[in-house]
């Protein structure tokens, strides 16, 4: 499960989170909503253990899959190399089957720099799913993906995370993206 209890966080002097709490149970999907700069990504990065909260309690699995706001792929590597880099050999076949599902199998040997923005997002999603974390954070993960592929990606996420009892935390400004899942909404205003 993902849980933040009375978490505060500041970048230098700027307070970003102030006694913020959220909870996403196993097998549940939650959408963190709010205006830009209200601290959504900061909260997610604290859950992913990339930032350390100044105070409060943080509960999250040791192994989390994250689809970052940016693709964070190595542009000079091929699609398959980017994905395999984060996997054990036993998961390679699973990754390839996911690539087939999202329609990127034919592109697996192409360099990431040769892909379109939407394709890169799908590669990031495949990497996160194939990694098989005990929870998933989606930070604006569906930006730039066309509607049909959004539905395919959402089905994969539902099957591999929600149905398997893993928590999913989603950050998005788009109601369309949030509606892809049966999500509970967590409204965030100025880090609270």
């Amino acid at each position: 499960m993902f849980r933040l209890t009375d978490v505060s966080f500041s970048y230098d002097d700027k307070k970003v989170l102030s006694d913020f709490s959220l909870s996403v149970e196993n097998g549940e999907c939650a959408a963190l909503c709010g205006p830009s700069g209200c601290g959504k990504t900061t909260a997610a990065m604290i859950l992913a253990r990339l930032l350390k909260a100044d105070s409060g309690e943080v509960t999250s699995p040791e192994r989390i899959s994250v689809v970052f706001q940016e693709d964070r792929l190595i542009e000079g590597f091929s699609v398959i190399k980017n994905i395999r880099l984060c996997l054990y050999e036993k998961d390679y076949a699973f990754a390839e089957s996911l690539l087939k599902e999202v329609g990127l199998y034919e592109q697996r040997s192409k360099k990431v720099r040769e892909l379109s923005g939407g394709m890169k997002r799908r590669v990031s999603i495949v990497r996160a799913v194939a990694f098989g974390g005990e929870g998933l954070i989606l930070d604006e993960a569906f930006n730039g993906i066309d509607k049909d592929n959004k539905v395919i990606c959402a089905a994969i996420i539902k099957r591999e995370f929600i149905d398997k009892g893993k928590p999913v935390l989603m950050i998005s400004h788009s109601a369309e993206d949030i509606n892809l899942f049966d999500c509970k909404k967590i409204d965030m205003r100025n880090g609270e």
Partner: protein
Amino acid sequence: MANNIKKIIKVVLAAAFWILIWEAASLLIKGDLSLFLPSPFAVFKAFFKMLFKVSFLKAVGATLFRIFMGLFIGTVLGIILGICTGESKVADILISPALRIVRSVPVVSFIILAYLFISVNHLPVFISSLMVTPIVWQGVNDSIIGTDKKMTDMAKVYKLSKTKTLFNVKLFLGKDRIFTSIISAVGLAWKSGVAAEVLSSPAVSIGKSIYKAKGNLNFDEVYALTITVVILSLIFEFFIKYLFDKRKERQVKKNVQTD
């Protein structure tokens, strides 16, 4: 194609311009001083005369080998030290200041000091590797510490091992910077290596030939030998660039084959 021809024309025109300036200067200088600035024609004549001498070819071979060894050892050392300082704060505190000092100490001071401890045949290798190491170290170190935090965060989230993060993320993303540092070290390897040869005079070397030619007041040959060093340095640089480009091409081909 048309671009390449334009490029060649530009280079030829620039070379012709400087040769004309050189010719004019050599004509203007009169008396004993004219000995120190021979005409381009005299220098090219000396150069082509040398080209067919076995002793010259042997000297070129020996110098080439020494500079290559110096560049190779310096590059390997620079990469190892760059990884150490980029990855470990303790190594950074201990090693970085020493390398910064090495980079700023005049090469001639090192040659004179090392001359006391190292044989004349090995001195040019030692000096060129000593000059190359800090340049390559800087390139590797900067690549590692300058890696985009977003990419190192990605490596952390996906539990990449330290080795994978180092080679596949940090060094891979910084490879252009590292290659540039190696290429810019080539010129320095030649300059410092030949300077060490001039001062230590190993039996067969371009440096010794320059020293001897200067002693005999044969400045046509001094200039011709200097041109030889410049040409060899450029060929070396071109060859290394070619190897890097070939490597890139091979990678593209490999990707196409696995498709």
